């Protein structure tokens, strides 16, 4: 049994953002380039680029409609990073078919996001 002496590091808010004038809530400026910067091969880089494009130019124009957390696009890129391009892609396609109101009752609910929780295995 390992024993880590000392407390956990303090929780620092992870968002980077500007404060809109007259509003208290910070504006979230997400950085979607993580998969691009951390791609370990060319195929993952290509998928990272697709993900970055989708998140910046397509998904950002739409409402947050995915029933899961993490969202389907994030799930696919995480699966690709974890299991490789082929298996990760299949997992992502399967997730797209599961992303429907029929998911009700099959997954635990994430209370913060108020969505079904389905992390990458």
């Amino acid at each position, binding site marked *: 049994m390992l024993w880590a002496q000392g407390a956990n590091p303090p929780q620092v808010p992870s968002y980077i953002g500007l404060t809109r004038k007259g509003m208290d809530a910070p504006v979230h400026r997400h950085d979607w380039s993580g998969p691009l910067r951390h791609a370990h091969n060319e195929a993952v880089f290509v998928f990272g680029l697709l993900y970055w494009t989708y998140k910046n130019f397509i998904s950002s124009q739409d409402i947050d409609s995915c029933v899961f957390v993490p969202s389907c696009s994030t799930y696919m890129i995480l699966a690709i990073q974890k299991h490789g391009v082929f298996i990760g892609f299949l997992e992502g396609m399967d997730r797209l078919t599961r992303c429907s109101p029929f998911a009700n009752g099959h997954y635990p609910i994430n209370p913060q996001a108020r969505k079904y929780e389905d992390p990458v*295995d």
Partner: protein
Amino acid sequence: MKTRWIRRLVWLLMLTGGALRAQERPATDSLSPTKDTLRAKPAKENLFDAQHSRRFADYLFRTGQYDYATEEYQRVAFLQPDDAYPRMQIVKAQEGKKDYYRALGYFEMFFPRFDTLQVPFQKEAIKLYVLNGEYGTARKRLWASRLDTTRKHTLNLGITLMEKKWKDALAQYHRRENILRDPVFHQFGLAAQRRLEHRNKSPLLAAGLSAVVPGLGKVYTKNYGDALMSFLFVGLNAWQAWRGFRKQGVRSVHGWIFAGFGVSFYLGNVWGSAKAAKRYNRKLDKAATDEVRAVFEYNL
């Protein structure tokens, strides 16, 4: 006239009395206490002594303020190094926070020699090993402990269930079903029986079924909504691809795009059906182990 004299007399008495009292006071113009004042007014109670700290720590623990309680129990443990109570309460405060990893860490630090511990402490150690998933160590400690035989067999059955060895657990239960009277032993036995009443789903069979008819593997794993969506996704894409190829032959871009999507959804569904079967089995396991885990957490 008389009233005026009486008033003067009262004033005189008051002034004289004040002057006399002022003489009794030590002649100092600083606020720092002298030896005399310290001797005259000793401190009645020290709010930070072990007894007060312990009472306050108990209050913090009772009200669920486990972090503050831990700090206060640390003070008590420092002031009373021979008392095991504050150390045990520190462990229990971590359990209150559901931080079983840290609780076990504290336990091993405070009580390093298992064989010299009293029975409740040994039970606590076994509980923490189980909740941390260290089943081998938990079993070793269990048989080395001074718990009574009934309790040992009950906890051993619980550990077998936590290891998800359902058949072994049921065999253990049937071996001592009529001998042991511990209700928790029977609760564990019933949990094993209930788990084995539900058959596991085969991931291979689920994938095979989905390969034949898209979505059928998900019907097998009882995800009917997902099955319908998979069938529609694959079917509609295949139909669109067929339309494109029928109109323009193999040079149809429309056809190839939809064929690509269709094949992707088809393969994803085959893979996903196998995963759905595994998820189904995991869900059944979790339902059974949660029941056992709750006994270890709250009812041991």
